[in-house]
């Protein structure tokens, strides 16, 4: 509804104001006349009308303000009473909120606030910042959108790959914030993962030809399929090798697999599709040992090529240890340690500790576990690492 209204106002604040007013009007009208057959359409229509009124009023006040109303003629969904068919508007709003001219943290906050309609206090809670801080962050971002004229539009085809990658990154970050929150309560985290999945489904549906959109959805589906088994009954982290594979959601994994197979057939994979393919291979393996490690190693090699990140290199090192043995893996991890870009990244000493343990170098392994422990704030991970130290 907000997305459809922004289309009229080209201004987020006016749109939000109009949407809120529409709810107030709904309360009055619906109480009096009963709830209409299509409440969503009713609200959208009212919000758009209110937005137009607000704009007209402002235009007379500020003669200098440019004409903000888009002609309805080129709007395939506008005009009619059925305003629920507004997918293009949501897509435009996603691309505005996930514009790389905004700081990543602002992109994430705006997406939650404006695309998902999460209230500012809840957005603040999800990212462990105070409400005034989050409100200021959102206000600052909205000001920049207005002042710099960040367009409310789906990017032109030549920009789409880069801009889509930015939007997918935001959605992925939303999910992982919910998935591996450093702190914060469980309800907020469940909300974040659910919102991220909704967004991934929406982008997939609105951009059916984009393989990376399919890739992100598949990746999140696999995460979701395994989510319940990542921690035990006491909230302690469970390693992939020890997770109860019988409890993984087969339907979600099958859905992800179909997406991955279809997208891989359509052309060369990008980073989200490759990550999804790796996650799906894990999800379909009968056990950790019986995983298709050579295939996973090859996929990590390809992923490192399209996305040269030290975190990918670390994951590849773990896969390498499963194909060529822990010594080969340790060599790769130590090379990354010397590289320095991952200093402070808790999964590096954790991976190193695991490899040292497999090589029987227990004292050094304990040292590395302690290093990893010092770097994590997540209670479940702390409990896991403490357990490994025993």
């Amino acid at each position: 509804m907000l997305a459809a209204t922004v289309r009229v106002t080209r201004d987020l604040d006016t749109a939000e104001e109009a949407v809120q007013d529409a709810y107030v009007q709904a309360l009055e009208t619906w109480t009096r006349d009963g709830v209409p057959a299509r409440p969503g359409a009713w609200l959208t229509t009212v919000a758009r009308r209110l937005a137009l009124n607000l704009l007209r009023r402002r235009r007379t006040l500020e003669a200098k303000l440019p004409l903000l109303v888009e002609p309805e003629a080129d709007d395939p969904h506008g005009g009619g009473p059925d305003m629920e068919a507004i997918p293009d508007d949501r897509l435009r709003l996603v691309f505005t909120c996930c514009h790389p001219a905004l700081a990543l943290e602002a992109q994430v906050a705006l997406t939650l606030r404006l695309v998902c309609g999460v209230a500012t206090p809840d957005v603040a809670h999800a990212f462990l910042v105070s409400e005034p801080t989050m409100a200021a962050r959102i206000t600052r971002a909205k000001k920049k959108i207005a002042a710099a004229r960040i367009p409310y539009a789906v990017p032109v085809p030549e920009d789409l790959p880069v801009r889509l990658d930015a939007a997918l990154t935001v959605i992925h970050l939303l999910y992982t914030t919910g998935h591996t929150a450093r702190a914060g309560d469980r309800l907020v985290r469940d909300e974040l993962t659910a919102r991220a999945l909704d967004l991934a489904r929406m982008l997939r549906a609105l951009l059916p030809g984009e393989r990376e959109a399919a890739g992100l959805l598949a990746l999140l589906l696999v995460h979701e399929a395994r989510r319940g088994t990542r921690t035990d009954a006491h909230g302690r982290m469970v390693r992939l090798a020890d997770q109860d594979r019988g409890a993984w959601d087969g339907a979600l994994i099958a859905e992800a697999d179909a997406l991955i197979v279809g997208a891989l057939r359509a052309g060369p994979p990008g980073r989200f599709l490759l990550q999804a393919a790796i996650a799906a291979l894990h999800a379909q393996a009968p056990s950790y040992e019986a995983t298709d490690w050579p295939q996973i190693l090859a996929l990590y090699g390809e992923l490192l090529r399209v996305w040269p990140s030290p975190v990918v290199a670390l994951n590849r090192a773990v896969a390498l240890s499963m194909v060529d043995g822990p010594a080969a893996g340790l060599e790769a991890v130590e090379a990354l340690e010397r590289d320095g870009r991952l200093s402070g990244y808790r999964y590096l000493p954790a991976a190193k500790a695991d490899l040292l343990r497999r090589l029987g170098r227990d004292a050094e392994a304990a040292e590395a576990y302690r290093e990893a422990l010092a770097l994590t704030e997540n209670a479940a991970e702390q409990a896991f690492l403490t357990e490994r130290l025993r």
Partner: protein
Amino acid sequence: MAQYAVLIFERVPPEELPEGVMQGHMQLPDRIAEQGGRVVAGLALEPPETATAIRGGAITDGPFIETKEVLGGVFVIEARDLDHALALARMTPIVDGGVEVRPLVGFEVLEAG
């Protein structure tokens, strides 16, 4: 159309800019026009060693802010929105540095007399 300033930050001093880059700067207004934008104004600065800063009344030698990439020039463009402005600004020839795109509150040239 909205107006944006494009600030050019360059490590290579103007007198050392390769011929091709200089030519690129000369051709930029035409290339921007081809893409549906317009260059409204442009100015090139002498190197920062020639700058004089005044802070709180005190006069010091050098630019107000020391940066590795030196502000070498500014031009003002008209563009449809930020995406358009970024696409136009990206055509600026740069050897070692980059540009900053800023929306303008206003732009006015005062006539003499």
